[in-house]
């Protein structure tokens, strides 16, 4: 059973998404015109951000990274993620490459800066890298947490 991972509900984001698709269309049709080439590509690793009652979660879709090479820093409310990969090295030196058919995957370094919402406790940031997704969790400060108020009946 599949359920939506997240849904696009912000109109601003929909505009960006549409622009992205338009760009992609132009790029695909006039440049390479490869049949069934990768769609929905973002030049940088894509980021999804969500929140629960007690934390903010950031997911970076960046496959093929060496976890040791991921650099995370927080300064004021700016979270910076930098890492990279070299797809040319994935084959190993002994491979005898005679040509290629497709090169669509990202290779190189990237840096993403994310403005964090206010009210987060940035002293304790959790980060783990699994199956090519970097998951970052930042707890909300005590006073920002959603509180449930019990209604008493007299």
């Amino acid at each position, binding site marked *: 059973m*599949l359920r*939506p991972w997240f849904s*696009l509900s912000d109109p601003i984001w929909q505009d960006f998404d549409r622009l992205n698709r338009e760009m992609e269309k132009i790029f695909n049709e006039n440049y390479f015109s490869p049949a069934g080439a990768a769609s929905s590509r973002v030049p940088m690793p894509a980021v999804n*951000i969500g*929140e629960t009652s007690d934390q903010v979660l950031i997911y970076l879709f960046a*496959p093929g990274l060496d976890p040791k090479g991921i650099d995370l820093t927080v300064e004021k409310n700016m979270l910076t993620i930098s890492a990279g990969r070299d797809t040319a090295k994935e*084959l190993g030196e002994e*491979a005898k490459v005679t*040509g290629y058919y497709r090169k669509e995957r990202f290779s190189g370094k990237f840096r993403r800066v994310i403005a964090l919402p206010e009210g987060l406790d940035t002293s304790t940031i959790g980060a783990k890298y699994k199956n090519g*997704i970097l998951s970052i969790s930042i707890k909300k400060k005590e006073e920002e947490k959603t509180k449930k108020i019990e209604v008493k009946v007299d």
Partner: protein
Amino acid sequence: MAKVKGQEMAVKTEGGTPQEQQRLRPVVVTPPVDIYELEDGVVLFADMPGVPKENLDVQVDKNVLTIKGEISDIVPSDISPLYVEFNGKAYERAFTLGPDVDVSKIEATMNAGVLKIFLPKSEEVRPKKIEVTVE
């Protein structure tokens, strides 16, 4: 509920035009690939972040190689989105193989969201070194 390639997907149905609903549906994403030709075969790399090994499906039917992968749920159930760039739920892509591939010896490995498939060339089409003897 709408059927998409045999899989059930929870679709947000309230509000919006049919076009909008179509677009808001979690998509099956075409993964970007690199395909290299080697002396002894072809190597394919596909970026499929979020897919664990057990959610991967690699099949060869006649001369068509199909790769499929489902993104495992990693988000807590009570999450609400703040900002979304990627709303894929699964990956799928198909490739037509040339006649030179020995389909019985295809190897697939998955590491950090990158699928690697080695498609060896069949023995008869591999380059052979012919020794020239000088008399």
